[in-house]
């Protein structure tokens, strides 16, 4: 494989979703366009001891039923979600992928892998008769790159394999990283997305993080996108959407200036005129930062454009997976034929630790 720099933009050629709307892209498309409420009471036996009795879970996600019994005995939930989403992506894209396994990269966004796996491992050490009475087969789960590594093993992906711990902005951070891999020629195809699991450990961490701001119910899932270098100008028939630009900034207390700068940069780098923007998807963040984000975007694009992007509140706070699901929601509009030719949709994502990120998707002219 010779690495050759490529000047074209990444193009999304296929995608998959494992979401609170169900397993599979079709369930996501119909669910997100209908705004179906996905919250449910947690099964008291499976999810005992959490701070909240409700969440937006992937329905029917019993890991060993979805993926089979082989190789799943020690697999944790976030890994299962990612392996399933990559499986569906490769299955549904058929022979779209021309890159070899060595030329195919995987980039996965996460918050912290599985907080449950990490904390359970320590708990076993602290509560056991001896401090080293832990199950060694669970150790890889307690490291954040477990899901990405397992996706590679399950699906024989031998190119660069990267885990980005990006919190709520993970989906766009992964997209930016994937863009770099394609641009530098380090991969010909990148499977890129983000995953988050629901767990009692995550629920407690989130509960203490939020304090008085109760926020949304927690959600979970994984969305994955197949990216290749291309250009709509030369390859009109190929691709669902072009990633025209991805930008991010760090903010301190107030995100407004940073988000404004981020939007300017995306429009400039993506060579996007304001009139071409037909929809703006906002992060489902609540509280002061969510209000600031909403205010900036409304000021720049108007409430009507914000309203054209499907609302994401019905799947809860999917944290690391949130921006990936926002992209999925815009691709869902396209599946229904509901995007203007050559139109541009923006995705805004905010992580309350201090990152704003913005991506522009350009839809085909045809």
């Amino acid at each position: 494989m010779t690495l050759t720099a490529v000047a074209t933009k990444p193009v999304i050629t296929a995608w998959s979703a494992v979401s609170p709307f169900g397993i599979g892209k079709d369930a996501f498309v119909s669910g997100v366009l209908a705004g179906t409420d996905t919250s449910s009471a947690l099964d008291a036996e499976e999810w005992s001891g959490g701070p909240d009795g409700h969440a937006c879970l992937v329905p029917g996600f019993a890991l060993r039923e979805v993926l089979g019994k082989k190789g799943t005995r020690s697999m944790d939930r976030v890994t299962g979600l990612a392996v399933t989403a990559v499986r569906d992506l490769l299955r549904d894209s058929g022979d779209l992928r021309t890159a070899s396994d060595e030329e195919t990269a995987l980039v996965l966004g996460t918050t912290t892998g599985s907080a449950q796996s990490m904390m359970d491992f320590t708990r076993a050490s602290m509560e056991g008769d001896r401090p080293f009475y832990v199950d060694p087969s669970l150790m890889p789960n307690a490291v954040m790159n477990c899901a990405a590594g397992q996706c590679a093993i399950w699906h024989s992906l031998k190119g660069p394999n990267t885990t980005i711990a990006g919190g709520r902005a993970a989906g766009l951070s992964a997209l930016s990283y994937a863009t770099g891999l394609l641009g530098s020629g380090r991969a010909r195809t990148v499977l890129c997305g983000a995953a988050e699991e629901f767990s009692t450990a995550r629920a407690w961490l989130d509960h203490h993080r939020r304090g008085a701001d109760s926020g949304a119910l927690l959600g979970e899932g994984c969305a994955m996108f197949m990216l290749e270098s291309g250009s709509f100008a030369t390859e009109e028939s190929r691709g669902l959407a072009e990633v025209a630009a991805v930008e991010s900034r760090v903010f301190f207390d107030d995100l407004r200036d940073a988000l404004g700068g981020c939007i300017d940069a995306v429009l400039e780098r993506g060579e996007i005129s304001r009139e071409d923007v037909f929809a703006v998807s906002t992060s489902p963040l609540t509280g002061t930062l969510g209000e600031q984000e909403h205010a900036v975007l409304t000021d720049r694009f108007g409430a009507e454009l914000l309203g054209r992007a499907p609302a994401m509140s019905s799947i809860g706070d999917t944290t690391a997976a949130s921006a990936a699901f926002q992209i999925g929601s815009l691709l869902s509009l396209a599946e229904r034929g509901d995007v203007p030719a050559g139109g541009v949709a923006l995705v805004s994502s905010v992580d309350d630790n201090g990152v704003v990120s913005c991506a522009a998707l350009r839809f085909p002219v045809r």
Partner: protein
Amino acid sequence: MSVNISDAMPDDAETRVVLTGFGVFSSIGVGADEFAKGLRAGRSGAKPITLFDTEGFAHANGCEITGSEPERWIHNLPVDTLGRATTFSVAAARMAVEESGVDLEDLRAKRGMISIGTTDGESYDLDNLVETEIASGPAAMDPTTARRVSPNRLSIAAAQELGLSNVEAVTIATACSAGNYAIGQGFDAIRSGEVDYALCGGADAMCRKTFTGFYRLGTIAPDVCRPFDVDRKGILTGEGAGVLMLESLASARARGAKIYAEVLGYGMNCDAYHQVAPNQDSVARCMEIALENAGVKTEEVDLISAHGTGTKANDVTESRAIHDVYGDGPPRTVSLKSMLGHTMGAASALATIACSLSLHHGFIPPTINHRETDPECEIDCVPNESVEADLRVVQNNGLAFGGNNAIVILGKYAEGAL
């Protein structure tokens, strides 16, 4: 497309990437100068672990950082908002900026990247939260601790501390090769013109979770880490941070910066084979990808800094992979983990700094604690004593759980060698 010491032209200065400042927290020295002295002297960071309770373990040495006061480099953020790994990361980032001699106001006017690799993020805090939960229930967890456990803070807090807003802040969580991943990301971003500078590296804090895991796998050495030794018994867990200032050669020249070394290229691949066992063919392939990207032939490489964990499996697999690529006479191959322990996500970043210091100062750091080389490894690991050497090209291996391999190739930078 490759950039080579010998054939580089002056107008490549925009796309050649050089290293101009280092922030170092390690168990053998804080700061680039002290770290270089430690490497040359073959210092050992090994000592009994005090950071967490080790009662019940038959042995518990580690390479802990004590008395380094990273808070002294943190001026703007309240230190109680930073976990131990983030504290190392933020302090090392400021140290790298200061050491590079660049004016912070100038950096704020530019587009930058901060990319920090990690294995465990703030697992040390997570361990403490579990301890609270066991003692008093989950409702009693400390909110301040809960608010700082997200590993994206390793890069974001560094940007906030330095007042850098126009940066892409990335935390790469590809376990024990994450530092090299981060350096590679910065390298590509500067070469493409995406950013003007990049602060890249890795950071990790020791934690009970990871110590216990390696202990249970039988891979914690009872006394010290002896890479490539016939009697090697495993790793010692370590901690620290290494952050590097990357910029184009043109940028470094324009401000008259000291240049430690040049990043010639790097390579990444994935074994797609086993969660914890390295795969010889894939590791060899990663070296080939890195060398090809750097435009370097095997005979031009003077030194390999091995991943060299000191476990039975790693060292034999890695040395065989080196033989696969280099044939019967591979260059001298050292393991810094003999001195630093396994600093996880910081390991390959600290090793890249060590390689750069070796190129700059003209020496090869030793593999300490060495008694007898394992005949199955068949490499010259420069036992126990550093040697003087005029190095030109150095390869730094980073391997990880998940089969995440990342290898960086560095070259000596000599003004006028164009």
